[in-house]
């Protein structure tokens, strides 16, 4: 059974919700990413999203843009990310989802990418600039090895599109909380709960919410409506603030995430 499915099954049994943490692979370097993932596992993060840095991250706000740039300047490549996951898999069983732009996948080769990711121990992929209609080959290859394809639904998605997104998503459905790019926001739109209810009405798959979430209070409130909450930029802001002191950056991020995790318990 895929680690993501297993995790959601366990969470459901405990009547809990998932906390999902996003960090950019290689920001500020690969060994920091490795430490962060292991710490996140220890403090109860349910799923880790590992960002694949890209030169033109058009769905990301300044925080993740800068994180990608730091990672790229450090020389991170897809090959290095796969090796990182392989090495993590000797130490942890935390579900790992890759998140990256389509050109990274397409350039690497769709079959080669999914086989490589799966073999390294990754459990699924989120591609913010890939809609299900353009993903036939990716889905076909992923299904053969139970590699999860997580598509995004947005506040502007019609019911028809939500149905398609839900149907093509495996593992979970990623609901984008707002019209905009990634990045911590003080306030979130008011209609999130209604949108999530619509999605849950149309599909029985887990629905997780991301984009803009930055406080334990927001995590707690959102967790009432959905199956999981995703936080990225707010964590990266903590890392960035303490750089170039890497040990401190890791410590601060872990303390911050620990508070966030409490929001779903």
């Amino acid at each position, binding site marked *: 059974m895929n680690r993501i499915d297993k995790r959601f099954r366990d969470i459901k049994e405990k009547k809990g919700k998932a906390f999902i943490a996003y960090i950019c692979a290689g920001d500020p370097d690969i060994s920091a990413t490795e430490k962060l993932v292991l710490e996140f596992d220890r403090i109860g993060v349910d799923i880790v999203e590992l960002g694949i840095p*890209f*030169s*033109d*991250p*058009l*769905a990301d*706000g300044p925080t993740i*843009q800068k994180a990608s740039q730091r990672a*790229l300047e450090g020389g991170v*490549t*897809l090959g290095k990310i796969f090796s990182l996951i392989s090495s993590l898999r000797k130490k942890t069983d935390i579900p790992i989802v890759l998140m990256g*732009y*389509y*050109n*990274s996948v*397409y*350039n*690497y080769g769709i079959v080669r990418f999914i086989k490589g990711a799966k073999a390294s121990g990754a459990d699924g992929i989120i591609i*913010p*600039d*890939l*809609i299900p*209609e*353009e993903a036939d080959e990716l889905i076909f290859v992923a299904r053969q090895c139970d590699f999860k394809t997580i*598509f*995004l*639904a*947005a*506040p*502007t*998605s*019609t019911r028809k*599109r939500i149905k398609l*997104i839900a149907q093509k998503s495996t593992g979970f459905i990623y609901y*984008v909380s707002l*019209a*905009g*790019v990634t990045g911590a926001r003080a306030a979130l739109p008011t209609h999130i709960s209604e949108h999530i209810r619509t999605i849950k009405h149309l599909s029985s798959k887990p629905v997780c919410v991301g984009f803009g979430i930055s406080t334990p209070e927001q995590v707690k409130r959102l967790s009432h409506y959905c199956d999981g909450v995703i936080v990225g930029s707010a964590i990266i802001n903590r890392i960035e603030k303490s750089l170039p002191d890497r040990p401190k950056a890791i410590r601060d991020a872990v303390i911050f995430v620990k508070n966030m995790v409490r929001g779903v318990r």
Partner: protein
Amino acid sequence: MRPDKRGYFGIFGGKYVPEILMAALGELEIEYEKAKKSKSFKRELDYYLKQYAGRPTPLYFARNLTRFLGGARIYLKREDLCHTGAHKINNTLGQALLALKMKKPRIIAETGAGQHGVATATVGALFGLECDVYMGEEDIERQSLNVFRMKLLGARVIPVSTGSRTLKDATNEALRDWVTNVRTTHYIIGSVVGPHPYPAMVRDFQSVIGKETKYQLKAIKEKQPDYLVACVGGGSNSIGLFHPYFKSKAKFIGVEAAGHGIRTGKHAAALLMGRVGVLHGSKSYLLQDGDGQVKIAHSISAGLDYPGVGPEHSFYKDNKRARYVSVTDKEALEAMKLLSETEGIIPALETAHAISYLNKLRTKKGQVVVLCLSGRGDKDIDIIKGII
């Protein structure tokens, strides 16, 4: 030819965008399909093209240049004489009318050379639409005249300091704005790039260039062209000239920017040197490294300084309908001088790339070449005054 239902020219094109934009792309597609069939939309657009933008633009027989080069008869399609000084207004008028139909009170654009930014700011002023234009900091420096024009026209010019500080990152920022304000904003993409329906839609608006050329040649009893020549950045003026001749025997020649030289790595020749990839919403040839990171392009001409290219050009390249060649910064500067001195026409640096290629094109007497003179060169004076 039309792209297929999913917006593909062969394997190129498609919709590679965040889900949040799908509703807006769907709306645009419906509105554009309606407009294409609507006589009143055509009347309205024709009215503005004629009375406001000054179409039809002349097809000028360049006698001196023809004599100088000693081969084919060379005609210049004078898009530089369009209102705002380049072909870009053909597209922005069309898209602004669509924005009005979609009841979007705000328009945004990316710009490199600033010609598309000016053309967007112009229709913003004309139709009372709020207008923001994204422009890389390097381009703001090298095309300062156009920055001033945009501001005078009431647009906000938003400087982009990330990445290349040129057109590529201006496009990223414009897309991020659109993702955020999609409910109130129409994004006027300035070239035949982006997700479907943009490449086909912008091409259709620019096809007025080739359509006029056809009847203007007929009107002077000239034969139809053996060669069509135009510069290619994203590729809108070239597609606009080529498209109406798709089924003819005319040979299409697209001239890319070779920057410092095509082997130096400092160029913008996506079709000649790129590999297929996905950027800014569509699949096309792209300058990228081994790991799929997009390379920073280089060209002296801000309008060609872009690592991607429109998907229909990629299709033309693969099926060999068009031939793509390249011209360096230096050659373009020489051509700018040549046209200024022989014909008294100062072309934009972008256009100068196409002109330069005429030196290499082996033509015979009796043949006909039409070159799209896509824009005028006033904007480039700051760049060239230290060089020429």
